[in-house]
């Protein structure tokens, strides 16, 4: 018999290599199949470097690494790997959503719910319900209150009615939503991914933006969100609730929202001239030949920050292996150096242009070792409130289909994504 199943089994594995949960949608596959995964893990040295697709004599293992856990799925036939990977991330998202964290402890504490969820999310190897709105109606998430009540009254956490969303053509929204305060909030969050070269010029930069929504509106609201400058959005991914045709013709986001928190759109702005780089870094890192020390000196300053304060700055540097220790003086904030992982972390805080934050001092190298060839890259984190660096601005939000007046709000924030400065 040729087995034409999609996802055969799932194993959850923690960082110390214990398989702490397994779920089989088809016949039981022995845990020993994970040996191949462990082999690959050993070879990869670093957990992040385990290849996501591994072939074994009888199966393929497709895995993701999330929150210090490996989700390893076993498949037996040709299956689109992205399909599996997306699904695994969705499983992790659901755990996060249900238990507040996606951790071994949380999963073990809620193992019965986990099993119910997995059964509900996949039937015969096909994804079924992966929308959190629907799942939450079928299987109630644990709350402290509910588990107390449950244990007193003996009532259950299984929904005994059908999710209403299943009945309608908008499976992402449940019916009969009621709030006393009707509110719709949007967060425009932009992350700057950039590579800055030694001399300070931009090698590569783009903005990864998302609009996350928190919608608590009664009934069946139909929303339209318009922008001052929709032309910025030429590379967009939409939540299924968005009417694509409306966007194509009018550049308006028109949708009946899911209830609660969800990601409305994600977008990418890449034309170089639109990506402002809010900070600059002056650096001088040098190691002397035939000597066991080096110098380290970095200074951060504001660049194109649109007059806003840059805060939450952190600089992380993976120093070369031969670095034993660092004795530095921060002009601002505090720093730590982990001699085992060789990671230097400098928690800067915010930039005040009058006195630029700097960190300088000596680097102690292993004596006798050759001076390191590679120059470490600096990884910079920062945050700018009330600014979407691309210039994207929401124009207005209109609601149709319901009579009440909701509270509306838009927040903007810009952060560093993968922001790297080469030295």
């Amino acid at each position, binding site marked *: 018999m040729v087995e034409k199943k999609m996802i055969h089994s799932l194993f959850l594995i923690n960082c110390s290599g214990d398989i702490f949960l397994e779920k089989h949608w088809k016949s039981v596959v022995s845990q020993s199949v994970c040996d191949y995964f462990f082999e690959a893990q050993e070879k990869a040295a670093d957990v992040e*470097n385990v290849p996501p697709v591994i072939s074994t004599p009888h199966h393929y293992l497709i895995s993701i690494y999330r929150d210090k856990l490996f989700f390893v799925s076993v498949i037996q036939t040709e299956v689109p790997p*992205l399909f599996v990977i997306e699904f695994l991330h969705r499983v992790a998202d659901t755990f996060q959503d249900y238990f507040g964290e996606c951790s071994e402890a949380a999963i073990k504490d809620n193992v019965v719910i986990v099993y119910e969820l997995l059964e509900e999310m996949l039937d015969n190897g096909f994804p079924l319900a992966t929308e959190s709105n629907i799942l939450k109606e079928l299987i109630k998430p644990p709350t402290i209150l509910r588990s107390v009540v449950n244990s007193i009254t003996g009532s259950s956490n299984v929904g005994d009615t059908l999710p209403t969303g299943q009945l309608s053509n908008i499976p992402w929204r449940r019916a009969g939503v009621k709030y006393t305060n009707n509110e719709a909030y949007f967060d425009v969050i932009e992350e700057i991914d950039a590579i800055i070269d030694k001399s300070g010029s931009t090698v590569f930069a783009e903005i990864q933006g998302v609009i996350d929504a928190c919608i608590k509106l009664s009934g069946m609201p139909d929303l339209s969100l318009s922008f001052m400058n929709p032309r910025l959005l030429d590379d967009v991914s939409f939540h299924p609730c968005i009417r694509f045709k409306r966007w194509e013709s009018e550049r308006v986001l028109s949708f009946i929202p899911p209830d609660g928190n969800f990601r409305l759109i994600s977008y990418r702005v890449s034309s170089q001239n639109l990506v402002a780089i809010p900070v600059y870094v002056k650096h001088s890192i040098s190691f002397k030949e035939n000597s066991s020390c080096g110098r380290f000196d970095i200074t951060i300053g504001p660049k194109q920050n649109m007059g806003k304060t840059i805060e939450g700055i952190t600089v992380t540097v993976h120093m070369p292996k031969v670095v034993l220790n660092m004795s530095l003086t921060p002009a601002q904030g505090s720093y730590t150096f982990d001699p085992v992982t060789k990671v230097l972390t400098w928690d800067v805080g915010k930039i005040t242009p009058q006195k630029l934050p700097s960190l300088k001092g000596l680097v102690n190298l292993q004596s006798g070792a050759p001076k390191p060839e*590679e120059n470490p890259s600096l990884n910079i984190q920062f945050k700018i409130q009330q600014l979407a660096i691309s210039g994207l601005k929401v124009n207005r939000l209109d609601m149709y289909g319901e009579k009440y007046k909701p509270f509306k709000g838009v927040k903007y924030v810009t952060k560093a994504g993968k922001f790297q400065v080469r030295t």
Partner: protein
Amino acid sequence: MTDSKYFTTTKKGEIFELKAELNSDKKEKKKEAVKKVIASMTVGKDVSALFPDVVNCMQTDNLELKKLVYLYLMNYAKSQPDMAIMAVNTFVKDCEDPNPLIRALAVRTMGCIRVDKITEYLCEPLRKCLKDEDPYVRKTAAVCVAKLHDINAQLVEDQGFLDTLKDLISDSNPMVVANAVAALSEIAESHPSSNLLDLNPQSINKLLTALNECTEWGQIFILDCLANYMPKDDREAQSICERVTPRLSHANSAVVLSAVKVLMKFMEMLSKDLDYYGTLLKKLAPPLVTLLSAEPELQYVALRNINLIVQKRPEILKHEMKVFFVKYNDPIYVKLEKLDIMIRLASQANIAQVLAELKEYATEVDVDFVRKAVRAIGRCAIKVEQSAERCVSTLLDLIQTKVNYVVQEAIVVIKDIFRKYPNKYESVIATLCENLDSLDEPEARAAMIWIVGEYAERIDNADELLESFLEGFHDESTQVQLQLLTAIVKLFLKKPTETQELVQQVLSLATQDSDNPDLRDRGYIYWRLLSTDPVAAKEVVLAEKPLISEETDLIEPTLLDELICYIGTLASVYHKPPSAFVEGGRGVVHKSLPPRTASNESTESPEAAPAGAPTGEQPDVIPTQGDLLGDLLNLDLGPPVSGPPLATSSVQMGAVDLLGGGLDSLIGDTNFGAPPAAAPARPGAPIGSGLSDLFDLTSGVGTLSGSYVAPKAVWLPAMKAKGLEISGTFTRQVGSISMDLQLTNKALQVMMDFAIQFNRNSFGLAPAAPLQVHAPLSPNQTVEISLPLNTVGSVMKMDPLNNLQVAVKNNIDIFYFSTLYPLHILFVEDGKMDRQMFLATWKDIPNENEAQFQIRDCPLNAEAVSSRLQSSNIFTIAKRNVEGQDMLYQSLKLTNGIWVLAELRIQPGNTSFTLSLKCRAPEVSPHVYQAYETILKN
């Protein structure tokens, strides 16, 4: 209180305790007990023993308890079908429950029970559920049809479930639509003949409408299904593309990639002059780039696919080079893929940027990545001529760093640059020579030696340099030895006066002191050339070499086209057609891109004619099973396939290469010089490998190998042969097969003039010598004869496969008999497969070819089994211990080159072994099993 408490039951008597709790009167206690059972299940404990007790809890009004019981059932229904059937009445009852959740649960669980008997109970409830008023039940029932089809396809068809399923594609609920499509595509895939998704313009339209309605997962199924459709002309292709493009903006990356596949495929039909073609190209870039901002695992799969897409249509991403720049904290598997794509996109316009990046990467920490970056610089030089100079100077900068592995990689690529642009960059040779001492990798040493030999006339101390390598000649790898030999001969031809001694030295080292036949042969060729006609030698050895070609490691175009049809699948990740590696995959059904067809072309024109029909099969490059069987039968037509066929393109390339390599060796440039373009990753030296195989074989023969010999049996009783009784057996010893005969004269007259003949048989067994009975056989006399056999006789497939028809003649008459020979006499001595090869082959052979057997009552342990089998040429390649069982992985090869792969599972204390055999010619498997039986039990 959390669920973790369920894990803390005492070890001892756990099952017993649970049993008691499950049978408790208290509902709460029961529920807790079921939860404990489920908790055990999640960590892989076997709690199937509790089946009856858990099923007893099923009849309850408590929904949660019921759901938990169903969770349990679903886990074990598949593995314990006979027990699950006990609950069938409850299932049927639950299918009528007023609560749709219960109805759905029941029908879903019933579908999981893989027993024929269940089907009679399932049909009625399933029919009702497919028409249920509740979409939740309908969508569950839709999937159930696929499950039932898997158990009993005929029944599903007879009951009309397929039609109901097709109707569900137009259901008002998107979840139902999604599941109906999923179920249909599953059924269609496992039964390609079912003609279920007979794609025609109407059904396509239905699917396209459903595409807008359905959930993200359903969209993937629909898109994959659309990709199999062949539009009748470019107009239809365009209209489908138009309706698919909005999917490129979906948040689910799998949807995006499936949409990309449809578009890439149908674009093939559009004329490039069409405006729409350009629009489509533009629309494809952003979603592909967006995939790269997703999680690293998604990025990896996306990059593997982008690698195909940029080879097929480089114009799509030609302006997007920068998104492939590597971030230092990308996982290594992402870094390496990005690098590959950077080189593919490198052009004159962006080369400066690319080089600056590559130079940056060359100072990173990860050695593999650094090496690949250095190689990439070389590839850029070869690909973009204008950049060559800059590349060379970048490489020189890198050599200055003196980082050992960087220097070595740089020298290897500079050699290629010299071959691409001769007489241009030789000024750098001096710098290269300075680093001679630091080279410790064979490839780098060989490259350096080649450079010295090739440019000997410009290097003053070339003789000294080469001489310095000569000291440790025998410690060098073959690659370096061959190179050194050639380089010194070149040097001699260029500067004959001062290097005579050197050349004699190397020739004698190569021909007299070396036991490498490859090296020896090349030494002799040079020697003879130089001694007979130095002028000719000069012409041959110093001949002008062809330039190496530009683009390296491109996927061969037909394979690329096929892979484009598999965008988003595992095939696209491995860059191999699915038939090459997926077990039980689509077999040999090849997909191909549609031909370009214009709508305004008359349908009568011959070009347009095939477009309506599914495309003509591509030339089938993968040997099918049929071909192999052909090999089995047509042994005398050609040499047998001696290794497991790989993806054939590489086999073909290999063959071409062998020639190329051979030719090269004559013009004095072997083994390194096969230009990278013509040399796909291929282990070992081309000539060497053939020869060393030969040597392996002889060494195998050398070890005395005594296969098991059965006692003689009577083949021809005297009463059937006018008094001649023949008994015999077959042996294999030290590589030769013989038939050991015992002839007894039970007649009253003397017998003489014996002769023997075999009919054509499956493996071409034939007597290698005439039957020699030296003296006449007197009455009551017996003579023992050993008749040597070979396997070069005519081949005809026999039934049973190992049947041998023999004719024996004497002065009285001709007698016929047939006998069965044990297959192990055909197991050759070089049947030990390389481990990697084993793994690849095991995967490569489709699942249907796997056969399983039980070997009972065998008291041996793994070691004894292994050594006993080995003496009959069944070789153990690897041994693994899995959960206390020994798994032996074994291989054997038949005289006609057929490989049989085996997995033997041995449980200590159990005398029953499980034998799984995989072979491209599965009909030999039962006989191989017989051989195992015979060898192990005697």
